[in-house]
């Protein structure tokens, strides 16, 4: 789990020799530089190769603006939806015993385990012109595939696991004691959720939302299948980057790509901050670790 950072001090007896340490660290650093740092710098380098003016012009191009807007709209719909779904699913799995719980847990992971292209195709099969619901949708003049609803649906599907995955282990570890205490003290279910459950999971929740948002804005595969690539209408930023690149418009492609790279950097910074806050909260937990483990296994 992402929140469980190892805090134990290492003693001399468990530490490798200096040579081994430097070799391993050096290897990791070279790898990171080659495969992460150099490409990241090159994105900004290429984007700004012909100067600020062209960079800004590429970003304010109407099609680019439209792609940015569409990406924001998609994230604005997909993230809150998955926030609600994720909390509900995590709540159900962490707090209740019911038939099909294992199945539900597996289903939550499904979007992680199948290719995004397949995820997109599922929606084409369902809602496309030749799909199961296609004729009915056409009759009622509802457009899903090659339109914004399709893009949103595909994004919701792909980003579904982030919030739930983050919350389930956290809620299982915290146990239901505090919620039960609130109920015994006369709180309603709603009051218990807002005043006890939510404050306890807020950092984990925020962490999930940040990851969910990053993926929602950056998703390519699934969206590509359902979008139809209609310029100025159904192109999100990642799709727009691909089109510009294929047209040898490197400044435009890298300028838009730099937005996504910037988003990644902001996400990383936020993620680190939230992780740090969550461990602070974790350390201060009232229930000792072994007790929580017992509680988790009892539920």
């Amino acid at each position, binding site marked *: 789990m992402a929140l469980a950072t190892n805090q134990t001090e290492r003693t001399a007896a468990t530490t490798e020799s200096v040579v081994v340490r430097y070799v391993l660290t050096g290897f990791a650093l070279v790898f990171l530089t080659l495969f992460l740092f150099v490409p990241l710098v090159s994105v900004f380098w290429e984007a700004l190769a012909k100067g600020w003016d062209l960079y800004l012009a590429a970003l304010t191009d109407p099609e680019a603006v439209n792609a940015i807007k569409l990406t924001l709209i998609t994230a604005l719909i997909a993230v809150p939806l998955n926030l609600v779904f994720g909390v509900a699913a995590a709540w159900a799995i962490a707090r209740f015993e019911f038939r099909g719980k294992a199945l539900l847990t597996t289903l939550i992971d499904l979007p992680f385990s199948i290719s995004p292209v397949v995820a997109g195709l599922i929606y084409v099969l369902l809602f496309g012109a030749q799909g199961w619901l296609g004729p009915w949708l056409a009759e009622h003049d509802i457009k899903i595939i090659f339109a914004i609803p399709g893009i949103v649906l595909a994004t919701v599907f792909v980003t579904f696991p982030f919030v739930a995955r983050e919350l389930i282990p956290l809620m299982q570890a915290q146990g239901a004691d505090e919620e039960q*205490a609130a109920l*015994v003290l006369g*709180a309603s279910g709603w009051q218990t959720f807002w*005043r006890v459950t939510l404050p*306890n999971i807020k950092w984990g929740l925020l962490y999930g939302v940040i990851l969910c948002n990053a993926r929602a804005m950056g998703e390519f595969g699934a969206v590509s299948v359902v979008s139809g690539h209609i310029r100025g209408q159904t192109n999100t930023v990642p799709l727009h980057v691909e089109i510009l690149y294929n047209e040898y418009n490197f400044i435009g492609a890298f300028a838009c790509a730099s937005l996504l790279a910037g988003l990644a950097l902001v996400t990383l910074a936020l993620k680190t901050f939230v992780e740090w806050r969550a461990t602070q909260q974790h350390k201060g937990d*009232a*229930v*000792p670790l072994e007790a929580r483990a017992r*509680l988790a296994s009892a539920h």
Partner: protein
Amino acid sequence: MSIDIRNVRKTFGDFIALENINLDIASGELLALLGPSGCGKTTLLRIIAGLETPDSGQILFHGEDATDRHVSERQVGFVFQHYALFRHMTVFDNVAFGLSVRPRRSRPSKEEIRERVMKLLKLVQLDWLADAYPAQLSGGQRQRIALARSLAVEPRVLLLDEPFGALDAKVRKDLRRWLRRLHDEMHITSVFVTHDQEEALEVSDRVVVMNHGRIEQAGRPDEIYETPATPFVTQFLGDVNLFHGRVDAGQVAIGDYAHPIADPSATDGAAKVYVRPHDIELSREPGAALASGTIEHIHAVGPIVRVELKRDDSDTYIDAALTKEQYQSLRLMLGDQVYIRPRKVAVFVDEGAHI
């Protein structure tokens, strides 16, 4: 308020947690549910609170059926084993929680809440910690805050799940005396769960010993200790030596030895004889003894001298606890052969032996 538990049964899958429990708890009583882990005591407490639903049976509060009443409407105070304090709230907000979630028409004003919370914090002697967070408190302090929080809503019943289980021995002793005093002042019907017989016997008005989802015995602490009703209760309440013998014409016989028993109703047959270490007298004379043994170990630190003997007629060991005076007057030495004479026995005739 009185609590009546009628024919309560609860299963978890194939596991029978409670089997046909009947128990009346008098108003103002401090009752201990005592038993080993898995005996169903916590389940019973949670059913009284409404945190679990019984498969069948009823819970009556003051004669009124409360079985289907939701936990938030039962007006019980519940102290969790691991305190379950709200970790993101201050001590003050924790204690104020029950009052602040009340619907607006029955909710006291901010000043009233403040006053009541501070009064409770004074009662548990922790008013100086009002602005602290649970993580900053010690175990004993958390436990007292948990208690203050449950008392804030003026519960009709106070339920405590292993209230001192997670504390170290010294704090535990202080806290249980303190709980007893608190109960004597407030006279609120209280039930607490424990697996520690000393705790149950010391604190409560009445002890209910449970095992395998059943009530083995219920009674005053001295009653339970002096006249245990079953072999389980005898063994659970403290160290005990077991002798296998036969009851025959008002005597219990083991090998060549015979000891008269007071209970005239005991039927003849194979029997288990229990003797507590401090009820054993060691003697150089064979009269009224149960067995003879050889002294293998003497532990003479403190006011009580513990003597470990190996029985001469079998390979079992017997523990005896003597006072320093008895020990000195007998001039016991390692390797001495002595007679084991009980002052007090608990005899249970094997029921299966008759069939």
